[in-house]
């Protein structure tokens, strides 16, 4: 199986830390990620909000390059990119739709395009819990994690095929294998407000606020995420959410790959931990104390 990596634009901007930690964890697990040469934006929410053929064309360009590069599977860390790539593949099964998409491309897309999956699913497919457990050097013992997938990873179910659309469990499986204590978090696939933070702040502030409030009330030390947009809404916009909820939050929001990386004894600077907006110092202190104190 040959995998091609679609980093997604956020990996070069707001989610540098997600990219870094994904790379470090995959390398440690023996998974080689090679970028799709000259990859370009999938169009994100705006493209499909405006027109699904445009969205599919922006995705098809990347899928086509991956196909010509011999890839069987495109892997991306970002649920929003994944959702667009998979929606494009799904809709392009229809000949008329495919033709309309091809009209927008420099040349028609290859007949057979590679399937698309998430980094999380790839890790889960290649390494079961036992296998991940074996690679844990410093378990996340005593760290209470609220797993938060966001709404795109598992929905729409017919396109995403990510297990139960309201109650996926892959992230829990992976983080439990790293020794963490997992909170049964009811809001794990409820939307954080997505990309509407810029044009309509109340949508992100209130929805993210509810997630932060429940995680706090349930005693979480940290929220684990897989989506750059969720991360930004919960972390960078945490003060806006606090204002909407009329309370204070001090809730670190880390990528699941950063948490995995810590457990696998990858140095924090290779996981982009210093890039988080809300400091995870309490998590790191607990982590250090439970692994022989100090650093």
């Amino acid at each position: 199986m040959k995998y091609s990596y679609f980093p997604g634009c956020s990996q070069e901007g707001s989610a540098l830390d997600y990219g870094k930690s994904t790379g470090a964890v995959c390398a440690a697990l023996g998974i080689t990620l090679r970028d799709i040469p000259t990859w370009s934006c999938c169009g994100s929410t705006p493209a499909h909000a405006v027109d699904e053929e445009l969205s599919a064309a922006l995705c098809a360009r990347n899928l086509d390059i991956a196909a010509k590069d011999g890839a069987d599977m495109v892997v991306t860390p970002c649920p929003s990119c994944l959702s667009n790539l998979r929606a494009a593949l799904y809709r392009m099964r229809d000949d008329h739709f495919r033709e309309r998409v091809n009209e927008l491309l420099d040349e028609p897309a290859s007949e057979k395009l590679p399937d698309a999956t998430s980094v999380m699913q790839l890790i889960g497919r290649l390494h079961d819990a036992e296998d991940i457990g074996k690679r844990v050097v410093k378990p996340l013992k005593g760290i209470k994690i609220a797993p938060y997938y966001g709404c795109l990873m598992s929905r729409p179910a017919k396109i995403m095929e990510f297990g139960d659309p309201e109650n996926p469990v892959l992230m829990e499986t992976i983080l439990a294998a790293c020794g963490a204590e997992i909170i049964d978090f009811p809001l794990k696939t409820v939307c954080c407000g997505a990309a509407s933070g810029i044009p309509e702040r109340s949508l992100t502030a209130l929805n993210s606020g509810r997630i932060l409030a429940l995680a706090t009330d349930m005693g979480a030390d940290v929220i684990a995420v897989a989506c750059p947009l969720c991360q930004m809404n919960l972390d960078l916009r945490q003060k806006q959410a606090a204002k909407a909820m009329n309370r204070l939050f001090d809730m670190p929001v880390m990528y699941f790959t950063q948490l995995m990386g810590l457990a696998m004894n990858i140095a924090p600077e290779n996981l982009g931990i210093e890039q988080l907006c809300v400091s995870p110092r309490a998590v790191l202190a607990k982590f250090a104390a439970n692994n022989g104190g100090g650093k």
Partner: protein
Amino acid sequence: MNEIHLNRARDPAFIKETEERSGQDIGTCYQCGNCTAGCPAAFVYDRQVNQIMRGVQLGLKDQVLSSVSLWYCLSCSMCTLRCPNNIDVAGVMETLRHMAREQGYITAPKMEKFWMSFLDTVRAFGRTYEVGTMALYMMRSLRLGTDLDLAPAALKLRKLPFIPHAATAATGRIIERYMKRAEKEGKRK
């Protein structure tokens, strides 16, 4: 409250177009309200998602297509998941938004401006970066000051990406072809 004369307002072609383009049998909606109960954007909607579904059933084109809800929908698919009749409600919302846009019902211009600013960034750079989108959006909407409170924290963590020329050129061509085609087909670009 506004008065609707069902005998006059009903537009059967609108019902048909919505059902065909979304591929959904909207007639099966029995107004249970599950979609609305789980909708994270409900608090900014002028018409709730179940009301929109009812509006489509009744063929109330004007009422439906002028709703700001179409623009605030987050595409989170919670409604689709919870619909007991397996209607892809989120898909219907997306279809309606496309129809509204094509026909010039832009009732939440700031949302459209934001999306178009994003696409401008993609067209110009092949990839997007938040700072670029934000700057273009502010120019379009003159909402100077939007999110400026985030700038210090954000800039501390960010840098501009290097983008290969091939990515830029190819996406630019895709978006240009799309714009041309939309214009030819009489849709809003």
